[in-house]
């Protein structure tokens, strides 16, 4: 029971940190997935006098990823009842060409303005519709979400750092006396510190097992994925083996670092 209590406080701090890291990873993935969705949905409509090949568009700006010609058939079809077949053909020939231009990332309002200006400078392009106003609102919402999630992560990190520091002081208090007594009888540093490293390693194993187990079960159960799918985001909550490796490495490095700090901070009573 006493031994369990010794472990519990460090395990709790480690679990909090690991949980925060994994949640932040999932939030980042969700934001990136949402940004990808926005990028896929966003395009600039360009009106051109004559046909332009994709390579001509790519030359205009390096952020342009693709350009596809829009079929005007459904527009022409609306005049089917009012115009003769011959006139319709003529209209089809004289109509300007419409292109949907996609960019390689979700652009900032400044980038949109820049690309639009470059497109308009092309002699064949007569008009550009960049839906800048609509885009601006969505972009600002995305930025806000990103900033809020970062602030949230920083706040949790600060709290857990305080937890770790508190734990550090408890460890110092708990183990300094024992280490001093061992030093009085000539124990080398590694022998005096062995108990701390053992405690740190055991706690790191337990904390990473608990957090990895929780996320593994969360994925199996699928509740979180269902919630994200509802808002159109498909994201990996727990990627094997990348995520357990990241969490385990963080747990080990943190707890070993903690043990080393305690050892560095412990002074022999004189």
């Amino acid at each position, binding site marked *: 029971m006493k031994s369990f209590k010794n472990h519990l406080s460090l395990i709790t701090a480690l679990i909090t940190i690991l949980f925060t890291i994994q949640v932040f990873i999932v939030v980042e993935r969700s934001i990136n997935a949402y940004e990808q969705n926005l990028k896929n949905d966003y395009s600039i409509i360009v009106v051109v006098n004559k046909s332009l090949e994709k390579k001509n568009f790519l030359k205009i700006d390096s952020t342009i990823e693709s350009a596809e010609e829009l079929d005007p058939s459904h527009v022409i079809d609306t005049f089917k009842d009012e115009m003769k077949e011959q006139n319709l053909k003529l209209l089809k020939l004289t109509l300007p060409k419409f292109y949907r231009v996609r960019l390689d990332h979700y652009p900032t309002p400044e980038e949109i303005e820049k690309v639009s200006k470059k497109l308009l400078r092309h002699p064949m392009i007569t008009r550009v519709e960049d839906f800048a106003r609509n885009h601006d609102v969505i972009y600002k919402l995305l930025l806000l979400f990103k900033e809020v999630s970062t602030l949230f992560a920083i706040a949790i990190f600060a709290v857990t750092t305080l937890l770790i520091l508190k734990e550090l002081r408890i460890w110092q208090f708990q183990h300094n006396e*024992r280490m001093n*007594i*061992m030093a*009085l*009888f*000539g124990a080398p540093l590694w022998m005096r510190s062995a108990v701390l490293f053992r405690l740190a390693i055991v706690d790191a194993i337990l904390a990473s097992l608990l957090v990895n187990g929780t996320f593994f079960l969360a994925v199996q159960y699928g509740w979180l994925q269902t919630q994200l799918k509802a808002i159109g985001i498909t994201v990996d909550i727990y990627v094997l083996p990348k995520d357990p490796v990241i969490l385990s490495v963080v747990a080990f490095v943190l707890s070993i670092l903690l043990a080393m700090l305690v050892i560095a901070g412990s002074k022999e009573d*004189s």
Partner: protein
Amino acid sequence: MDKVIVARDLTLAYNKDETIINKARFSIDSGEFVFITGPSGSGKSTLLKSLYGALTPQHGSLIVGGVEMNGIAAKKLNFLRRHIGIVFQDYKLIKEWTIEKNVMLPLIITGYSKDVSETQVDKLLTHVKLKHQAGKYPQELSGGEQQRVAMARALSHNPILILADEPTGNLDDYSSQVIWNLLEGANTQLKTTVLVVTHHIPEHMSVDYKHFNIEHGNIYEVL
């Protein structure tokens, strides 16, 4: 006879302005029983600290077990401490360890095998009449019993020198007598050099002893 401790112009201080021991000169032969007395704050415990390397001499030379303590390296200090047994007024037992493991500590540090260590601990706990308490923890024992455990620990690795800092300071008369008997036994039977810092020398000592007194930073032998 070999000298276990040699001090030449030994000056001890916690800071530059406050000298505790001033240019002390004394030596202690192997197998001697030595008392160091003096009023509170005279520097008795400070001198003891310098003997086990917890305080570095400010000036002069202090040789313990053939090792110069001034500027001693950590590795060499650890090696020296494995040949010294220390007893404190507050016992300094490891609370999380059983009595048996506490007594075994110097043997673990020195690298004795498990079998040898267990036999030695068994012998010592029988000697201090605490064999039946081997599995208990220090806080479950009385002060006198804890000090007997500390004595057993100090003797476990057959040290060349036992340093005791007011070993009976917290004990009643009966427990104090038990501790004095154990210290005398270590000196007469094992020929271990014993140095005790104390306020009062017990009246009925059965061994010959040397007596140093410290006053105003000076150490002198009481003849």
